[in-house]
């Protein structure tokens, strides 16, 4: 069987690997360490990055905290954000881009302000996380404020299936709950307050069967958690 070469999709520079032409403009020289005189850096960001740099024996250790700070400020690790961090840290933008592209929490493409991570790993998917992810994607729709991402294990399998909204863990959820998640975020309320992980006591204090929604099966759709679980009081200040 021969392959028709015209059917093989190729990118601008002839490579079959997608993204190679986005990652680097081959016609340009590599960017050097930005010149502080011509690179304006917001004062708050500069102070924060310099504070991180002072904590470590090697200033480069501050790369990840600094990128977190820049992403908070700019919404994503934009070329400007990376250039500003590079300017303060005296590193090349290439170094920081290499770091930013490695980690799941950094985005080198524009994204919505609100990070919604849906855990779709083993424990959560045993309890219907894939349906939850699809429901979350459709609930968020094409709202540019939301960045819905399916994520690997978020370390909260006790409230599976769960999602993390801007770092706040909530669960267990059923697909129908996604609309409320979106509404709560838009209204600026605490998202799904009664099912936040921070209120959850140790498992031994929960009734058996009330800890999470039972795993859904084709003949029996997922049910919500029992009322008993929602009444459990936890330390509110934690």
């Amino acid at each position: 069987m021969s392959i028709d070469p015209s059917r093989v999709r190729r990118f601008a520079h002839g490579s079959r690997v997608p993204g190679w032409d986005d990652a680097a403009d081959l016609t340009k020289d590599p960017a050097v360490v930005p010149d502080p005189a011509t690179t304006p850096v917001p004062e708050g960001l500069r102070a924060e990055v310099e504070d991180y740099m002072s904590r470590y024996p090697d200033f480069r250790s501050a790369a990840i905290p600094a990128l977190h700070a820049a992403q908070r400020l700019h919404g994503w690790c934009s070329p400007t954000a990376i250039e500003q961090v590079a300017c303060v840290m005296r590193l090349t933008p290439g170094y920081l881009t290499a770091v930013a592209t490695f980690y799941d929490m950094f985005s080198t493409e524009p994204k919505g302000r609100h990070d919604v991570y849906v855990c779709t790993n083993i424990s959560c998917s045993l309890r219907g996380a894939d349906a939850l992810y699809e429901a979350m994607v459709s609930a968020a729709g094409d709202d540019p404020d939301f960045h819905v991402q399916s994520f690997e294990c978020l370390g909260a399998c006790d409230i599976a299936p769960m999602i993390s909204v801007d770092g706040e863990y909530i669960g267990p959820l059923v697909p129908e709950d996604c609309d409320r998640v979106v509404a709560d975020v838009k209204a600026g309320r605490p998202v799904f307050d009664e099912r936040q992980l921070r209120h959850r006591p140790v498992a031994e204090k929960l009734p058996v069967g009330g800890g999470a929604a039972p795993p859904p099966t084709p003949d029996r759709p997922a049910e919500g958690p029992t009322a008993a679980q929602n009444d459990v009081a936890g330390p509110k200040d934690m």
Partner: protein
Amino acid sequence: MRQLLFDDIDRPGLHTLAVYRRERGGYEMLQQALQMEPEEVLTQLQKSGIRGRGGAGFAMGTKASFIPHGDMDKYVVCNADESEPGTFKDRELMQKNPHLLIEGICIAAHAISANKAFIFIRGEYDLQATILEQALEEAKRANMIGDLDLWVHRGAGAYICGEETALLDALEGKRGNPRLKPPFPAVQGLYRGPTLINNVETLMNAPLILRMGGEEYAKIGTERSTGTKVVSVSGCVQRPGNYEIELGIPTRDIIYGLAGGPDEGRAIKCFFPGGSSAPVLPGTDENLDLPYDFDSMAKAGSMLGSGAIIVVDETIPIVDLALKTAKFYRHESCGKCTPCREGTNWTVKMLERINTGEATPMDLDIMASVQDQIMGNCLCVLGDAMAMPIASMIKHFREEFEAHIEAARERTGLGVSLPMANRSDHAGPGPLLQPDGGGATAAVV
């Protein structure tokens, strides 16, 4: 059941310094340790026989004793990058009792005479990192931690950073790629200085060991698996959560007794005894009666790992489970070593072929041989962490895989495969030479 770490952990305000000092005698053990010679503290840790709670199960005291003496900069790194699927014990411990961790780190730092320490916490644990930062700030202000330079460092989402050398690279501000070992971190770790890396739960046990004495602590649990262990039970159980147990109790007591077992009328198909990296054990009576400790799990062909039990009931198709597992490792492979980068990718592709009906039972042999070629051939154990569960699934549930393959072929109209006719030299070395006995599937047991 004896509880050390989880004892009344929900007490309101335990995360504050005032309550921790008043109710738990907080930082007393650190003060006591600072009066002792570092060697004495180390001896107590060694006598306790505590083994690492992060996954490898290496004796903590022995690890600390590898740190060279002398005046160089030494580091303690707390591995709080809890990313093993099914594991969530450190999250609850850090959220509810952060000062115990800080005290434990300070004691470990004194034992090896380290002057700098970091808590590397995964970036997704925003709440826990904030609580730790507040607790640390409070402890520093009250002058509790002496002259130890301790910081909370947030990661940014990468499973590989739970591997100790990848964690060090991430902490140095690089991509989290594992390093070649040796040199081990105890000799040349963070910033090329001697570094002690321990899991959150291990370090939290240090103040408790000093309080009760190493020998007394060693009486809890079994002879070679001392102490208590926080077990995270998740998946198809009625009450998933963290439970503190004495090592050595029957696995059945954890899954059925504490976690409530699977839903009424369902049987356990298999379970991961120690996170998704552990080979699965079928839910037979024999396996459920195994004592839950490091050695018994190893003898049964699996491992205790991070102490995360993921229960899978009979309604879950094994192919879906294998695909989910393999996809996770494909996503998280850092790409540095070829066997892992390619092996995880091809395993996913072959499992997807099963669902699309393109596979034949021969694919199972090829898949098993791919796992065999990943094992032990990479810098770190991420590849092995996929190879072990996948190989164990093929080994224990081969018939279900084959039935699934045939059903999918039937569905897509490709017809029945002829497994024997397809078996040829092209299928790769290893398992085909000894289809039933040796080869890849048996090698990982």
